[in-house]
């Protein structure tokens, strides 16, 4: 019996190794809003890489460095005290779009999972990249699409609920949705 008990940690290890088998797959979201304004006017509101501090209720500050070349960055300060550093990947004013990815983020909280401390990032995702694009529908109607592609924050198998796919999709969708809805409100009010 003693011998058996001494084997238990080994068995647990074998089980864990097998359990790690299913890795995460990349997720995507696309949130859009239709605004009663011309496309140029909508683009004017978001073309500045740091404009997000003006139209996103959860972003309280933004510091922009490096202009509009690939590799330029913005550091967002969030209403909840967290921060995110985004890096510009593509900026195309003709197509009225830009693409960026998260380089670094603050930790929202630390949890213990699978015997280890896990830092839950302020946006519970990994390898997040996004694109925001302004598309004219007609002279006075414009659609803004804000897409994100990412993995869940926990890269091993059996994620904690704070770091699983549902958490990642929910948090990013809510972040995009809240921003776009406020953008719509601000532009339509000023019309």
């Amino acid at each position, binding site marked *: 019996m003693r011998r058996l008990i001494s084997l238990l940690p080994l068995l647990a290890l074998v089980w864990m190794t097998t359990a790690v*088998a*299913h890795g995460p797959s990349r997720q995507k979201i696309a949130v859009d809003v239709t605004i009663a304004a011309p496309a140029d006017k909508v683009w004017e509101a978001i073309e500045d890489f740091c404009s997000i501090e003006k139209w996103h209720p959860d972003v309280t500050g933004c510091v922009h460095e490096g202009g509009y070349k690939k590799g330029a960055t913005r550091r967002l300060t969030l209403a909840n005290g967290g921060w995110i550093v985004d890096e510009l990947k593509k900026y195309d004013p003709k197509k009225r779009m830009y693409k960026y990815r998260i380089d670094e983020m603050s930790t929202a909280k630390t949890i213990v999972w699978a015997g280890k401390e896990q830092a839950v990032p302020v946006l519970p995702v990994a390898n997040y*990249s996004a694109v925001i694009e302004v598309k004219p529908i007609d002279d006075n109607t414009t659609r803004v699409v804000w897409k994100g592609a990412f993995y869940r924050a926990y890269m091993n198998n059996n994620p904690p609920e704070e770091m699983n796919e549902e958490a990642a999709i929910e948090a990013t969708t809510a972040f995009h949705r809240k921003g776009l809805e406020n953008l719509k409100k601000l532009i339509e009010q000023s019309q």
Partner: protein
Amino acid sequence: MSRFSLLSTLLKVAAPAALFFCFHPLALAKPYAFITNQGEDSVSVIDTAVDRVVKTIKVGHKPSGVAVGGDGKIVLVTNPESRDVTLIDGNTLQVLGSIPVGEGPLGVAVDREGRRGYVADWYQHVVRVIDILKRRVVATVRVGKSPAGLAVTRDGRRVYVANRDSDSVSLIDAVTLKVVASRKVGSHPFGIALDEKRRRLYVANVLSNDVTVLEADTLKPITTIKVGDRPYAIALARDGGRVVVTNQYEDTVSVIDAASLRVIDTLDVGEYPEGISTHPDGRRVYVVNWFSNSVTVLDIERLKSLTTVPTGEGSRGFGIFIAP
């Protein structure tokens, strides 16, 4: 029979035959492109004669890798989440069965005869050898960490594999099933392409944003070429004269000229391009756009996009998805 009447007889037979092959649907229906749709557990079959999806086939869970061999008859699809490979008849488009293959099947290749399949296991750091007739794994070869892209020589005697987390490439002797050479490449190598005519192996390095060019026999480095952001997979066009690389983070492909080993153009495709394969005409290149759920068809001679084919949710097509 006079020479003239022989010719006229030949014409009488050949002309309708030529017409038949030109316009008969069966003659048009080849080859197919098999596109894995990770988000909906299916494969979209594109008829490359008309560039649209003619069938959607249900496969295992979260399909990713794909390989076509045996003159287009054998199609292997890796399903990382159901941990198996789906075997499809590439002519009838029927699922023939599935083969369990360890913990994390991802990259896959098949030999020209369609006898053997090779499956890279992302988690167990091995390449598994599938006997396609027996429909089971017959051997396992230990390689580097998190193996991904695979390539098999035409004679079926050698297999190459990119080991993403070891930043290396391994060369397997397919007869002895031993790793006979390995070489460090760039950071996180993923997709590879083998040019047997020039005896070169091209390796896309996801994190270092470049392509390593190796001598295929010795794995001796020839050069490194900077490409776009997050290169993923590689296809050879114009008989290896052009090397086309998908750049996931910038929605483009880089076109490399094999003679000068330089990027000669960068073409826009859909969002998050991943898998890439060349039509046997050597000219049309099919690029799978993961975010856009589509395939962009490029004319690599005129360096322009011909059309976009809508596919399924989360299309990936990692591997040679059109019979070479």
